[in-house]
């Protein structure tokens, strides 16, 4: 799936290069004061026990003019919730040194991905406390920590019997997150008494060699298995440090993974990732390392007006399973080459270009707008990207009890579920007068929402959207302006 870097994308993940930073501490009355030169400023508040706070609270930055006096700025810090309980083994005895994590779905490129939010190790009594859990919905998992250094790998059973081992287990005792108990955590909530009973599962061993493109052994490096089949807690690591490049990874549940290999070549660090399906039996002679890579020749073009293409237009592929990435800059003609593309599926990102929207993505001549680019079986490919220039505009007014509602999160979602991918969705925040303009909207039919509080990206969840009945239908024609009055959807209290 693809996302366009712009107002609706997570530009926050880019590195912030501050040229000046000022700091202060609130006094006994919670007050603070800054005097600064005019400019663009980001104000952050931090206190142990609370999630970081920002001003303005939902979006930034502050645009301060010379001599401007901004008073009465209020930053509301949200206290973390606390989750505590026990981890038990299959006999019901306390399990020390287990890693307990609170996991929550986040929407990345429009798809839900289970992410770690807070983790802690159980003590000698099997007790855990997670004390930095922001409000939200969570799953709890317990994992046995095993870092597979060669010396610590246990010998296989002498009788050749299948091996079982404790695996990542979700509250209360499920190996699959689909069967896990969901926990709702409110601000400052103190929830206790959770019991996670670890479960054992069939596991296999992977043995093989880390090799370079010529098949020669890589004598020093690392092999890591991650993710796959929803095994969020599953991560296995092996360090390679012998002349034949051999590695062994025990305790692997059968299933689909991404195998990442890392090693140093000269002064650069090489990372390769490839899909790996682990069968329900031990694997010998597996060769991982620099696998086959693809080269993608591409071109970005703009409908009607090629002058709209920026000088340094960047195209990025981000591995859908995490880890790998490929980058390229388009030249003045829009041509680019993505090289050393590892064989997996990718999400696609573009620089934003004002006055345009992403209209078409032809991957090997197949329309792939809103889809992942499957590079798992290619060595060469073509990628043609077309930016449309006939986008429309939405003017929205948000109100609550007939009064303007500032700071509402306004989201414009295509009415057609098949068009609901990130580059077709526009988001923004209402200003002090409750007004908002969304630009460069692909022509089409939409639903517009204005939420007081909403989890970022949850509008890509079909079930969530189905439950939201206050969306207002609006049509955006080519180069036309749609207008809509939205009633603020209040936060659930």
């Amino acid at each position, binding site marked *: 799936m693809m996302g366009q870097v712009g107002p609706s994308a997570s*530009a*926050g*993940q*880019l*590195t*912030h*290069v*501050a*040229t*000046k*930073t*000022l*700091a*202060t*501490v*609130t*006094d*006994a*009355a*919670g*007050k*603070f*004061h*800054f*005097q*600064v*030169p*005019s400019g*663009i*400023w*980001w*104000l*952050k*508040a*931090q*206190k142990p026990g609370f999630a*970081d*706070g*920002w*001003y303005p609270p939902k979006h*930034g*930055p*502050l645009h*301060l003019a*010379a*001599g*401007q*006096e*901004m*008073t*009465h*700025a*209020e*930053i*509301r*810090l*949200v*206290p973390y919730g606390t989750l505590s309980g026990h981890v038990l083994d299959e006999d019901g005895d306390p399990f020390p040194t287990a890693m307990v994590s609170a996991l929550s779905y986040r929407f990345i490129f429009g798809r839900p991905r289970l992410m770690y939010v807070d983790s802690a190790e159980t003590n000698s009594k099997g007790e855990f406390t997670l004390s930095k859990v922001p409000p939200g919905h969570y799953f709890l998992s317990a994992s046995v920590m095993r870092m597979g250094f060669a010396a610590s790998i246990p010998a296989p059973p002498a009788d050749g019997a299948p091996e079982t081992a404790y695996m990542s287990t979700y509250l209360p005792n499920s190996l699959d997150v689909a069967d896990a108990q969901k926990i709702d955590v409110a*601000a*400052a909530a103190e929830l206790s008494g959770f019991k996670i009973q670890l479960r054992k599962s069939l596991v296999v061993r992977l043995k093989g060699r880390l090799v370079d493109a010529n098949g020669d052994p890589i004598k020093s490096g690392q092999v890591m298995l991650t993710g796959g089949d929803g095994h969020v807690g599953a991560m296995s690591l092996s360090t390679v440090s012998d002349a034949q490049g051999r590695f062994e990874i025990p305790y692997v549940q059968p299933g689909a993974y991404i195998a990442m290999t890392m090693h140093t070549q000269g002064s650069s660090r090489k990372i390769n990732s490839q899909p790996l399906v682990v069968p329900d039996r031990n694997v010998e002679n597996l060769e991982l390392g620099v696998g086959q890579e693809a080269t993608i020749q591409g071109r970005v073009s703009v409908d009607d007006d090629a002058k709209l293409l920026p000088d340094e237009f960047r195209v990025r592929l981000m591995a859908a399973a995490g880890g790998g990435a490929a980058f390229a800059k388009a030249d003045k003609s829009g041509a680019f080459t993505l090289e050393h593309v590892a064989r997996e599926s990718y999400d696609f990102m573009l620089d934003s270009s004002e006055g345009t929207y992403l209209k078409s993505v032809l991957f090997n001549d197949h329309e792939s707008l809103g889809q992942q680019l499957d590079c798992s079986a290619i060595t060469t490919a073509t990628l043609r990207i077309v930016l449309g220039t006939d986008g429309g505009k939405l003017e929205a007014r948000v109100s609550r009890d007939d009064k303007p509602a500032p700071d509402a999160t306004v989201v414009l979602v295509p009415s057609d579920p098949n068009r609901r991918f990130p580059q077709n969705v526009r988001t923004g925040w209402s200003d002090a007068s409750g007004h908002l303009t969304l630009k460069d909207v692909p022509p089409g039919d939409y639903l517009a929402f204005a939420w007081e509080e909403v989890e970022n990206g949850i509008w890509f969840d079909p079930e969530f959207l189905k439950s939201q009945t206050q969306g207002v239908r609006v049509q955006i024609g080519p180069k036309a302006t749609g207008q809509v009055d939205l009633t603020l959807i209040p936060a659930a209290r």
Partner: protein
Amino acid sequence: MHRGTLALFIPLAVALAQVPTDQKPATIEGTVVNSVIGSPLRKVELTLANGQISPRP
């Protein structure tokens, strides 16, 4: 006044005249509170950084 000195002085005077608008500092002040109980929070560390790119997560 010598003509050469005047030539130096006038641009400097113009430059100085422009300074106050650009250099008058902006002020931002306010309060940090607990979002649940609304009480003010002391010893909160605040950082104000300038730049175009968002550092927000």
